[in-house]
């Protein structure tokens, strides 16, 4: 079940990254670029968590995952920022 949820999350994040990429190519709006990066970082974060990379690289990645989370949220705020 956990694997299925992770897979769905990854697919949705990738789909949203794809949509943001198409929107960026069409409009060159900075907000779409921030969203694209945010969704890709979300994919990265989920992949790190799901693949248990912490055990593989023998290091605690909780800080890295935390930083990624903050970055994703910051990028969302930047995308919504009214220029």
């Amino acid at each position: 079940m956990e694997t299925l949820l992770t897979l769905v999350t990854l697919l949705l994040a990738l789909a949203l990254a794809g949509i943001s990429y198409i929107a960026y190519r069409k409009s060159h709006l900075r907000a779409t670029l921030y969203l694209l990066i945010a969704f890709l970082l979300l994919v990265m974060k989920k992949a790190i968590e799901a693949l248990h990379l912490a055990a593989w690289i023998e290091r605690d990645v909780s800080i890295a995952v935390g930083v990624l989370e903050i970055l994703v949220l910051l990028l969302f705020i930047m995308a919504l920022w009214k220029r």
Partner: protein
Amino acid sequence: MGMERRNEILETIMNKPGITFRELARQLGIGIGDLQYHLYRLEKEGKVFSRKIGKRRYIFPAGFEGDCQRLLIAISTETRRRILLLLMEGPLTQSEIAKRLGLSQPTVSYHMGELVKLGIVDARKEGKSVTYTLSYDPRIIARVIREYRPSLWEKLADNLIDMLTGMGDEE
């Protein structure tokens, strides 16, 4: 016979820039394979070129490269296509466009800015409002828009653009 056919195809493309492969085959009553062959030859001779956008391939005569680029960017989002079709009825102000299409003012403002930059639409200031007029051949715009078939991903991307450009609207 082959040469005559090719000239007929070229003439149709020159008279109808932005015609699609399917429409060209239908209008001239040519088989797909035959048309593919003649278009291949015409492209090789540098007399025509084609661009794929959405699910369709548009064919243009040589010398139309700059115009084609501008045109295809102009019609690349659903909202711009709706605005262009509306402007075919006559000049309109930004608020009139927003009202008639049910869009927010910032969204219309963003798209009008892009269309003016592309040289597809003219903006004329009249008092406090700006009136927009088509500055490009409406027949070509209508032909290209009529055949445009966006994918689901493109539709979602268009919605995202409108959502982001429409932020801050007070209505």
